[in-house]
């Protein structure tokens, strides 16, 4: 099976090169047969990569330790499902293979969905896509092969990194990859638009959903990663501004900017260069993120020379960026805005400011991420920037974004007058003051969280207000129930109202982020059996400890702790510690009590250590207020994005019955006045 996989990988490289060339030559030389052959090439490539992935999975399942990938990342003790299979992306070559395979599936989906409707662009899209695939196929064949053999076949493998032995790790990487890799598709369309000279709104219209889907996956990947960190890493938090986290956040931020700015291009014919630039930057950041996580460059500027893939990736990023920016420059004369902005106080101008802020946040993070490299190059000393830098710089930008998020629903496209805006602001500002006072009374006394909650209240007031008043307006005209009016409004204009729902879900998440970051506490205490300590109103009593419990590849030590509040026992927690002898690595297993009323707070308990005969155990207890709002907000984010992604009823009806513009433009069937 692995021989078949190796053969398929070689054929895949040849097919990738052929398809890229056939796509380009077919369209440039007006040979549609060649373009059609390129289309089939994309299908063949995805089939070949599926064979390669299947052969590696087969090797993992059958414990073929002659392969380095299998021997270094799995063992006979490792459960087949899911961890033996997930070992595929624990390996460097395996993760590159996974990248390329997912991209091949995206390519297949694009070809099947868009070939007929976008025949002018598709051969270029295929050429760019398969050019990128050629790079990955080259890497997989010659630089970092998943079929690399061990010199001597071991009897058993080295096992999987214990950190990856968590259910979230079975879904977090694929979701994140779907996000990362998916940004390649809008990039291919953008390059196709530049190469073909078809620089109007066609590529934007075609790629909106193809951008939103990876944006959703990347967002969910980030949230799942946070949840994994919270459940596994045992430091009580979920976001540490780690370079790998930042690597995924940066393209997400740029993608967010793009999803807003495309609306300006669609409506006003402006920001054409900006939008192309954003897609190039987003794809550049995706490649940079892959490079970052695979090269080890952040640990040291010299590390990438030790890695198989670092230098290659850096060269590829340079080629992609130089080529795409050069292409953009050659088309600048054809990318002038159709219309100037009418007013500074307009939605489009505020969208531009929002874009600058999103891009600014991404760049601030990028500077933080590469600071160790810059400092080592300049001073010879590796300096890193920590959470205080990110919290201050990125936090300030996010605050400004919240303010914009609150104001924008009050301003129309084209412009608004200050007087009208002022009148519209009165209600939301009063609500904001009210919520701020309530938050103060409830205990939010520090300036920064209080300011954060005030901003959230403002955004909720203007966004929910717009949803409410729009539904009321429809209700007045159609005499539907308010909820039905809202549902119809949503189904007719998913982008606007679905977007508002996404904003509201982000606000729920933001409530959790502010609460958990500003007010979390932690306390450490060493206890003998029967002893207790109290933290934030919880009394924790150490009752029992048991060692040497077999647990998968590891050995578990587990303590039992009774949790009391107001004299009553409310929970029993069993924090643990798993020692993995094969890797000689201990792992903390936190125990979490979710305090239920309105997701009030979590009690998060870990074992710090114990005396030799288990007489004394040291515990660390974190109390994280409102942290579950983060996960609930994430869930709402998923739902609201799916609602937004769903095809617009109006869109379909417009396509089916294109008639007079005014008939298609109205959301209302019979406005009353």
């Amino acid at each position: 099976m692995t021989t078949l996989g190796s053969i398929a990988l070689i054929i895949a490289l040849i097919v990738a090169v052929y398809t890229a060339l056939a796509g380009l030559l077919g369209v440039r030389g007006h040979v549609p047969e060649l373009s059609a052959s390129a289309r089939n090439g994309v299908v063949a490539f995805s089939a070949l990569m599926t064979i390669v992935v299947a052969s590696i999975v087969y090797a993992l399942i059958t414990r073929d330790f002659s392969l380095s990938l299998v021997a270094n990342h799995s063992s006979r003790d490792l459960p087949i499902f899911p961890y033996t299979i997930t070992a595929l992306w624990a390996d460097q070559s395996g993760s590159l293979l996974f990248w390329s395979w997912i991209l091949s599936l995206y390519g297949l989906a694009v070809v099947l969905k868009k070939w007929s409707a976008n025949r002018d662009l598709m051969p270029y899209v295929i050429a760019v896509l398969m050019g990128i695939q050629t790079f990955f196929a080259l890497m997989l064949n010659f630089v970092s092969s998943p079929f690399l053999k061990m010199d001597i076949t071991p009897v058993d493998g080295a096992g999987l990194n214990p950190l990856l032995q968590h259910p979230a790790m079975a879904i977090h990487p694929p979701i994140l990859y779907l996000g990362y890799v998916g940004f390649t598709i809008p990039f291919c369309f953008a390059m196709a638009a530049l190469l073909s000279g078809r620089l109007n709104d066609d590529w934007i219209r075609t790629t909106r959903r193809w951008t939103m889907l990876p944006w959703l996956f990347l967002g969910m990947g980030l949230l799942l990663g946070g949840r994994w960190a919270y459940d596994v890493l045992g430091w009580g938090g979920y976001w540490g501004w780690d370079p790998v986290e930042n690597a995924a956040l940066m393209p997400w931020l740029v993608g967010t900017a793009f999803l807003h700015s495309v609306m300006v291009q669609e409506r006003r014919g402006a920001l054409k260069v900006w939008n192309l630039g954003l897609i190039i930057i987003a794809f550049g950041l995706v490649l940079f993120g892959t490079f970052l996580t695979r090269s080890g460059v952040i640990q040291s500027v010299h590390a990438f020379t030790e890695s198989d893939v670092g230098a290659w990736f850096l060269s590829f990023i340079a080629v992609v960026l130089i080529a795409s920016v050069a292409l953009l420059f050659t088309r600048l004369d054809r990318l002038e805005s159709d219309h100037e902005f009418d007013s500074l106080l307009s939605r489009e101008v505020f969208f531009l400011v929002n874009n600058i802020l999103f891009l600014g946040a991404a760049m601030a993070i990028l500077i933080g991420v590469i600071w160790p490299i810059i400092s080592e190059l300049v001073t010879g000393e590796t300096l890193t920037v920590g959470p205080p830098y990110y919290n201050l710089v990125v936090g300030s930008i996010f605050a400004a974004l919240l303010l914009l998020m609150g104001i924008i629903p009050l301003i129309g496209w084209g412009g608004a007058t200050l007087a009208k805006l002022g009148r519209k602001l009165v209600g939301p500002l009063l609500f904001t003051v009210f919520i701020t006072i309530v938050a103060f009374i409830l205990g939010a006394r520090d300036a920064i969280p209080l300011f954060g909650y005030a901003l959230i209240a403002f955004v909720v007031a203007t966004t929910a207000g717009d949803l409410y008043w729009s539904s009321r307006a429809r209700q007045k005209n159609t005499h539907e129930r308010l909820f039905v009016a809202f549902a119809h409004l949503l189904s007719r204009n998913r982008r606007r109202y679905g977007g508002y729902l996404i904003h509201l879900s982000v606000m729920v998440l933001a409530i959790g982020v502010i609460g958990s970051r500003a007010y979390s506490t932690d306390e450490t205490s060493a206890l003998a059996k029967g002893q207790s300590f109290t933290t934030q109103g919880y009394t924790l009593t150490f009752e029992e400890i048991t060692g040497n419990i077999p647990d998968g590849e590891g050995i578990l030590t587990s303590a039992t702790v009774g949790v009391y509040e107001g004299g009553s026992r409310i929970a029993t927690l069993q924090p643990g510690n798993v020692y993995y002898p094969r890797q000689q690595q201990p792992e903390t297993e936190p125990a979490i009590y979710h305090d239920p009323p309105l997701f009030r707070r979590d009690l998060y308990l870990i074992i710090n250590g114990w005396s030799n005969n288990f007489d004394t155990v040291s515990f660390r207890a974190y109390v994280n207020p409102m942290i579950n709002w983060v996960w609930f907000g994430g869930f709402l984010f998923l739902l609201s994005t799916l609602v937004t992604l769903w095809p617009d009823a109006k869109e379909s009806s417009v396509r089916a019955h294109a008639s007079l513009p005014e008939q298609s433009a109205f959301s209302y069937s019979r406005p009353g006045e």
Partner: protein
Amino acid sequence: MAIFVGLIVLAAVLVVLAYPLYLSRPRAVASSSGAVNDLLAQRDGLYATLRDLDLDFELGKLDGTDYHSRREKYLGRASLVLQQLDRARAATGQDGGMSDEIEREVAALRRAQGMATGPSTHTCPNCGRVYNEGDRFCGRCGHTLP
């Protein structure tokens, strides 16, 4: 065995790649299909703008003068785009490779021809909405039309 299967895979790939080259010529890609897509994108953008404009006016974010002048402007652009779309589609229609959906759309447009002649043709004196010849009442505000 694996090498034998590999050769079969290679042969299958060659067939898949070569099939379009030996097949009868695929229908020529109409040069204007890209133009139609561009116009469709413009049309959708204008529809979205008009939809938002109506809603913003309804919610009191725009005053009447601004709303009417902008609406006129965008309706004018939309009419122009529809006319261009009609012409482009007529050219592309000769290709015969259009989807049913597009054909339906062209038919709907042709039926509508003669009505969307420009923004200034017939507009309601009360709310500014464009109406069709023969309409007695405004479909938006119910005002009796001249």
